[in-house]
């Protein structure tokens, strides 16, 4: 069933979103010192966290759309695909 499959996919996306978002807080905090690369490495780790947050958020949003599409498919008889395009654009 496509509807239940979309719900499953939505749930999977939600889990992935949570997992990646939890990883988006870098554990490496560079010590301060004479080496300027320490501060750069620290900033890089923070920036990676931002990008990972963006990826997690994107997957989470997609998951919500898939789940919504699944609900709409289940609620309609004909499953007119034109109704669902907005969900995935």
């Amino acid at each position, binding site marked *: 069933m496509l509807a239940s499959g979309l719900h499953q996919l939505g749930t999977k996306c939600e889990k992935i979103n949570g997992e990646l978002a939890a990883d988006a807080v870098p554990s490496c905090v560079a010590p301060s010192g004479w*080496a300027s*690369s320490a501060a750069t490495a620290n900033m890089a780790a923070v920036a990676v966290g931002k*990008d*990972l947050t963006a990826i997690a958020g994107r997957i989470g949003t997609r998951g919500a759309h898939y789940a919504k599409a699944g609900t709409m498919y289940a609620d309609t008889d004909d499953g007119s695909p034109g109704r*669902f395009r907005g969900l995935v654009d």
Partner: protein
Amino acid sequence: MAGAPEGWPTLSHLVASDFSYFGQLADYLERISPKAQNYLEQLAEDVKRPGGVEWEGQAGDAAIEQAGLDLVTARPVMWSWDDVAASSRRWQDELEAGKHLVFGAVDDAQRDGFQVNDDYSVSDTRTSETEAEFKARVEAAEAHSSFIRYRVGTLVGNESRINTTLQVMTSEWGKLTFRSRAATGTCTRSMTTGNKTQHLHRRTR
């Protein structure tokens, strides 16, 4: 001999130096990069057949295309994580090796009976009996100090080069954004909009 140049670490700072932050950064990147890549690749495949049933029609086409575009958008960023992780391992090794070379030069001076000061100048711990011996000890002190400073200078120069390289390699990090299909103006096939059929081409990245 003059003190250490500005911006150089003192000997005690160098002793306390720890370049493990590169290893920590590499650990982090090596942990998250394959995970994020695998998930995005997996989802780009899963969306084709949610629950094992092919998702046909325009909604399915759009979802499949969008999942693929998300992967294409994020991939260069994630690949750059891999590059920096590999480089970070090398940089840590290189800087640790440079630090040990300095310590080696310091050990040589100490074995010769000189005390190495915090600014890499050296002081003789022995008393010379003759003028000639004194002159030789002064020359030896200058030679040791110069060699130690040469190695510190090399280390500082390498650290600076590595820092610049890291800045360049990570300059685009933290800016990842995903755009909708409408915003990117992309489509892999004909899309029917009202009564018109538009043929849009995949955007070249």
